[in-house]
């Protein structure tokens, strides 16, 4: 981050993730694309926030700006009172990519331990070995402890990826469409596994998705984005009680949430 952060802003936003007038352009083959335009967004600490929007609306870009993997061209991103780059250096992010991105030469056990091993200068050394095993147990991976990724199904691989993220013990979790490659039955199951872990840990989650029901059942708030240029068109509060369960998928609040997100998406499109 080249811009200095206003000390007042820092004082106001000690926690959570905050975007102030953030814009981002991409240059591809000499062509300039306006990826995100004047994003103002506050993500409360400990909340579960989904980003949803049409393809090319900049959801993943927004996630990477929050995570310090990309830099904003305009505006400021404040993460727990710091720049995203500082938070990245402290290993305050646990990242779950779209693909499981497991190391094929590591067993399940060693893949889960991975994020604690890198960047030893940071204080974040990952959770204890016992806690890792507990995470593996909770994701139903104990029988595959010493299996290599190629021996696991796609759903199992993505469960390892989630266990690996939680094993870092970071206060912020960034998830980039982690369930998009899975079949509907597997992903329905994994939503509640994810929620069960998150409810224990209480970290802040930013979750990118294409699925409206998924966004509603998981989130406290759903951020709806529009495309060309990417911008926030609406933020919808989901009124469902916690802890969530699949029984709520038949409730009126759930259907109301789904309808609200769908209408916001449509409004952003027009």
């Amino acid at each position: 981050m080249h811009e200095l952060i206003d000390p007042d802003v820092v004082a106001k936003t000690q926690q959570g993730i905050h975007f102030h007038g953030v814009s981002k352009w991409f240059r591809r083959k000499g062509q300039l694309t306006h990826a995100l335009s004047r994003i103002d967004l506050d993500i409360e600490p400990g909340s579960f926030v989904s980003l949803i929007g049409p393809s090319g609306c900049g959801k993943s870009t927004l996630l990477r700006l929050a995570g310090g993997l990309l830099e904003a061209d305009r505006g400021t991103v404040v993460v727990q009172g710091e720049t995203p780059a500082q938070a990245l250096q402290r290993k305050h992010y646990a990242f779950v990519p779209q693909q499981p991105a497991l190391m094929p030469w590591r067993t399940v056990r060693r893949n889960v331990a991975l994020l604690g091993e890198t960047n030893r200068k940071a204080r974040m050394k990952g959770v204890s070995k016992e806690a890792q095993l507990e995470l593996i147990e909770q994701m139903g991976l104990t029988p595959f402890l010493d299996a290599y990724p190629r021996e696991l199904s796609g759903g199992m691989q993505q469960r390892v990826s989630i266990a690996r993220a939680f094993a870092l013990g970071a206060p912020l979790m960034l998830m980039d469409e982690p369930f998009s490659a899975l079949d509907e039955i597997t992903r329905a199951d994994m939503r509640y596994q994810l929620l069960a872990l998150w409810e224990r840990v209480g970290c802040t989650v930013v979750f990118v998705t294409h699925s409206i029901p998924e966004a509603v059942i998981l989130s406290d708030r759903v951020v709806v984005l529009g495309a060309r240029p990417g911008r926030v068109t609406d933020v919808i509060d989901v009124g469902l009680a916690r802890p969530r369960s699949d029984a709520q998928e038949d409730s009126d609040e759930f259907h109301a949430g789904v309808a609200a997100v769908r209408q916001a998406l449509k409004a952003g499109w027009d």
Partner: protein
Amino acid sequence: MTQIHDATGLAADVILGDGDGDAGDDLPPPEERHRVRAALLTIAPILGLASVFLGWEAYVRIMDLRPLTLPLPSNIFIHVFDNPGFYWENGLVTLKEAAIGFVLAFVAAVVVASIMAHSRFMERAGLPVIVLVQSTPIAVLVPVFLLWFGFSPWPKILTAALFAWVPFVANALTGLRAIDPDTHELLRSTSASSWEIFWRLRVPHALPYLFSAARICIGLALVGAVIGEFFNSSEGLGNAARVGQSQPALNEQLWGSVFVLAFVGVVGVLLLATIERRVLRWHPSQSLV
């Protein structure tokens, strides 16, 4: 809604009916067939090799060829086993040249590829050099090496090394570079150093590439050593073959050298495969073996 309900009800009936009717349907297939198949698969490589030599043997006998045109493979085997000392000594000479060349090539390739994998600039600067070496017929450099090193093992070692270097460096570069972008980003998200990314991601990822290069390079290092010996040498299997070719009386020595060289290559490849099976247990290629 009722339609869907009906459809599932029907499906459940069909499944139940099937289970009731024939309980024996769900037994595992008989063990016997499986074992015969496994045994056939085990001896298939031996059958393949045997058919080549038996076909050769039959062809020479039926066509009644002169030994100078094509000798009987059985005679070549007998000749080799009658002169174990000769082939052991010369084989060892060639093996040493090829092995030292192989190791030199491996080390040089990994060093060069690592430097190139670390910076875009070095990669762009190094690529034309690799292409240059790749496109040069390396055999033509043997006289140059002879000029430099004269009557020593070094011209042969360098030729072997240069032959093996090209596939090694190309594969090492691909292996170190073509890492999974998601895993790379994941490591970056913990602010991992490029040193950590090198050792934890690039090197393990490059291993299968290096092994497949090594399989080719065992043969290429032997080719390099033999070509070096053709030019100027008093020992080694390349020299033995050259001498064998120059005198009709030594025809068996020419073929004996070919057989022993092939044997050395095969042993090298088998040794490598054993190491590969241990090191690359995680790799999908190993589930086929």
